[in-house]
């Protein structure tokens, strides 16, 4: 075949970082081309947030007190939609098998997809933050940048664990039910730490607890990302 000038023998396959960027770019491009799905995710999260506020009624003290919790629950519920979608697109036409047969390092698929999910959840959190502040009548006692930072590391932890479990659930018949069943118990420490750190942003940190919560989130990130890197290649070879 003389169609392409280069020969497979002279081709230099991308390393882990370059392959990760290919996967990340591909996932973000798909999200951009299907913006209706992205909008649905944002509206789902906003609806969840508003439902919490309606459920508690006019009790503004209770709303303010638990606002950080409602904020993270809205993100976590919405994350189930985006994480499921992330592997649904790989299931269509067996695209994940296509990636595998292109001899891509499976770790690059994990990192690329988890980073793609992180970007989505982080963006979602940034959209939800001002809305939460308005709906729950919150005051930001610490920096807004610190809030965005916490949303970022919280999103990373959710995405690492979520990407791994959505890959497992993607081949199951009841995958929409299976993913939250598998994922929510694992995310309990992430919810506790993220809510704890976010609450300090709104209520102030006179006792200097922020470092403990962010440290915990950091450790959870190391654990989830490391486990994902080790275990993901095994599950993709079985898919």
């Amino acid at each position, binding site marked *: *075949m003389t169609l392409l000038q280069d020969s497979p023998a002279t081709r230099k396959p*991308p390393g882990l970082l370059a392959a990760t960027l*290919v996967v990340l770019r591909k996932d973000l491009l798909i999200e951009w*081309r299907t913006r209706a799905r992205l909008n649905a995710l944002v509206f789902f999260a906003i609806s969840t947030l508003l439902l919490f506020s309606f459920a508690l009624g006019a009790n503004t003290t209770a709303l303010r007190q638990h606002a950080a919790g409602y904020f993270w629950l809205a993100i976590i519920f919405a994350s189930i939609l985006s994480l499921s979608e992330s592997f649904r697109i790989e299931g269509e*036409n*067996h695209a994940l098998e*296509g990636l*595998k*047969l292109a*001899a891509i390092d499976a770790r690059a698929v994990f990192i690329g997809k988890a980073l793609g999910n992180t970007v989505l959840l982080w963006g979602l959190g940034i959209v939800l933050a001002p809305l939460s502040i308005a709906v729950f009548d919150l005051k930001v006692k610490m920096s807004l940048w610190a809030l965005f930072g916490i949303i970022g590391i919280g999103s990373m932890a959710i995405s690492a664990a979520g990407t791994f479990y959505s890959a497992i659930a993607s081949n199951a018949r009841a995958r929409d039910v299976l993913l939250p069943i598998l994922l929510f118990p694992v995310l309990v420490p992430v919810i506790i730490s993220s809510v704890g750190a976010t609450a300090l942003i709104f209520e102030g940190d006179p006792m200097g607890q922020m470092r403990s919560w962010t440290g915990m989130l950091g450790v959870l990130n190391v654990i989830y990302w490391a486990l994902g890197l080790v275990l993901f290649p095994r599950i993709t070879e079985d898919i």
Partner: protein
Amino acid sequence: MAEAAFQIADVSKRYGPRWALARLTFSLERGKSLLLTGHNGSGKSTLLKLLGTATAPTFGKLTLFGLDAVSDREAIRRRVALLSHASYLYEDLTAEQNLVVLGRLLGVADPPAAARAVIERVGMTKRADHAVRTFSAGMRKRIAIARLLLKKPDLALLDEPFGELDPEGIAVMEGFIRELRAGGTTVVLATHLIEQGQSLTDTRLHLAEGRTLEAA
């Protein structure tokens, strides 16, 4: 004896309680082409998936180009391309974007240019910027062929390549298979169109219920 493209030694594959292949032994010389025949469920697709390292044997030893299909699968995957019932395409990306992604993963020198070249070769230039979701089954098949051309494999595994193609598409596909063979690529072709398949291949392996019924 010429180097073997692949050697299947007493290979079996089980899916749950069902044996898709049972104790199959066969080898094919490099550069030769094989016609794989058999009824639906006879194990043709399973054999192609095994050769493409999409799945691993339950028992037995499979080597491709002297490499072990399990421990050396990364190296094998760079040399083998599988045209299967699944197109491996992302529905929401355009034909060109799909091929650029593959080109980048394969380390092709200029992925956008290479993608455009193979799209032109399969006669899909006018639809290059359209999402795969809008394509007919035949068009998807053509883009799947473009994926195979982009890979330039040493071993091409073609599972029902004429399915879903119109007469023009079938003629194009036959041309591709002849081109592949002329370029020294080993071809394994699974099809129900036996006469057409025989005119394109050197040898034939007929499977029934996962076993070799006849090799000629």
